[in-house]
């Protein structure tokens, strides 16, 4: 790597780091505000609250029925992860290994739900789901959440599959393996790190997926992030600290999975895959 040592270059580097530091400090202070407030007895017009308490967690838990909401959240997320894994990995395999007429069109079809924001396709989707009576139910929420996650798994898995030498599969075929055996004994072990990474990313994204869940969820199929939105929306009805306690519970739920995910993926992969020239 080239390092410049001129004064201008050093000043430039300092300015860039100052920018990063400013951003990170504000970000952490913002998170810190929520955490501090959730433990505060009374916090008005001072740097720190007057006293500390954990009672807001108990009140948030009962006021917002967080037990039920958390169960629904994990059921939705679990189903989304399983289904998007099954649909996504198989489709990614076909797209990585075969060239067929219409493949570009198909890839475009899978790219669109990732490029178009959820709120744009969520409104027509919600309309259709309300007409079919699926909206408001558990499966309606799962179906809506699958729309961006299936393509996400496909697009994450295609490069993973492409990097596996097709000769390994050819060798397995020579020894008489059918497609199913090939998948179980050759591909799955090789793809496992990729699948795990993709599914953990789906998990983290689905917990935080607000728009689609918000548009199709009913009172009994709300996930945590939607419940949090309604709590903040109706702020003033309940104590700020209670809402903040709920926000902290949401943060912990998300961050636990993020930390697990980061053991398997580079943080950059949450947005894109690093160290690879992206295909245009």
């Amino acid at each position, binding site marked *: *790597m*080239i390092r*410049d040592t001129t004064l201008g270059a050093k000043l430039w*580097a300092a300015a860039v780091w100052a*920018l*990063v530091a400013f*951003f*990170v400090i*504000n*970000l952490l*202070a*913002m*998170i810190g*505000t*929520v955490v501090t407030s959730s433990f505060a007895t009374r916090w008005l017009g001072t*740097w720190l609250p007057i006293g500390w308490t954990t009672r807001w967690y108990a009140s948030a838990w009962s006021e917002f029925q967080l037990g039920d909401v958390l169960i629904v959240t994990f059921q939705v997320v679990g189903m989304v992860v399983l289904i998007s894994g099954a*649909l*996504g990995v*198989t489709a990614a*395999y*076909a*797209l990585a290994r*075969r*060239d*067929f007429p219409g493949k570009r069109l198909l890839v475009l*079809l899978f790219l669109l739900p990732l*490029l*178009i*924001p959820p*709120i*744009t*396709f969520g*409104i*027509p*989707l*919600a*309309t*259709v789901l309300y007409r079919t009576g699926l909206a408001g139910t558990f499966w309606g929420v799962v179906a*809506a959440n699958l*729309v961006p996650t299936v*393509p996400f798994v*496909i697009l994450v898995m295609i490069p993973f599959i492409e990097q596996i030498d097709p000769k390994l599969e050819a060798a397995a075929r020579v020894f008489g393996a059918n497609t199913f055996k090939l998948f179980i004994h050759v591909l799955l072990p090789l793809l496992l790190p990729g699948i795990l990474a993709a599914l953990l990313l789906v998990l983290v994204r689905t917990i*935080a*997926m607000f728009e689609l869940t918000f548009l199709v969820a009913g009172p009994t199929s709300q996930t945590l*992030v939607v419940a949090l*939105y309604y709590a*903040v*929306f109706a702020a003033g009805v309940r104590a700020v600290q209670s809402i*903040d306690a709920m*926000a902290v519970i*949401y943060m912990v739920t*998300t*961050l636990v999975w*993020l930390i697990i995910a*980061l053991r398997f993926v580079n943080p950059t992969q*949450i947005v*894109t895959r*690093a*160290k690879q020239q*992206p295909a245009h």
Partner: protein
Amino acid sequence: MHAPAAMSASGPSLRQRLAARGFDAVTLLVLPAAIFSLLLFVYPFAFGLILSFEPKSGDWLANYQRFFSDSYLYDTIYKTLALAIPVTLLNLVFAVPVAFRVRLMRRQRLLTTILVLPITLGTVLVAEGLLNYLGPQGWFNRTLLTFGLISQPLRLVHNYWGVFVSLVITGFPFTFLLTLSYVTGIDPALEQAGATLGASAWQRFRHIYLPLLMPGFAITFCLSFVQAFSVFPSAVLLGEPAGLTRVISIAAYQAAFEEYDYSMASAVAMIMGFVQLAIVVAVLASRGLFYRGPASGAKG
């Protein structure tokens, strides 16, 4: 394709001829996902498009006529663009120098992990956090007051700036991580060759990296823009959803879930999708202008 031909003994069988074109059992694996996407993505979109031409009253264009004649509705396009375009440009302009600096770091992981936080936590949590943090009693205003930079608290929430800041907080890490992946994807040998020939840091950026990165920047811009354009929760929670930050997604939501006019809501969603598509197509088309340069040859 034709069954009789497959039965002739001399020529290759249907299965072989399909396989030669890329259709065999493996290709069929794509079907479940494709059918799923058709059912839950293409069909709703087509349904919404048709529904938008079947208004509750009036002729088939009544929804669109209402949207473009009611300033309360058509203004949402400007309001959304007035948020999304400055935020996206700001994020990209900041992300590029930071990505070039971080690229030289050996331990990037801590920083990238911190930056991934707001993306993972999502817009609702960021909105809730910023309501406290940027509020008149929050730490941000308090710090500025302590240092004597301002004499009274700045009004940063329930207006344009609250939404702006929330879009920067979630958008900057997204833009930065995308940019970083493009920047690290370029062979450092190219830059070293430039440095050997005496190019300064700016010249190396301008003549080596920029042409190679232009396609990547175009895609980054599109993805970041589309994210910012679809702002919804923070515009409601942190902005003035009835005033300056009444973005187009709020108009669509209100039509669907407050007026229960799904036809109108679909029309607004179609207009929203069309505006996004227009901007993305414009940016990607200009990317084509850059991409035909020597950049592709250098990667070879």
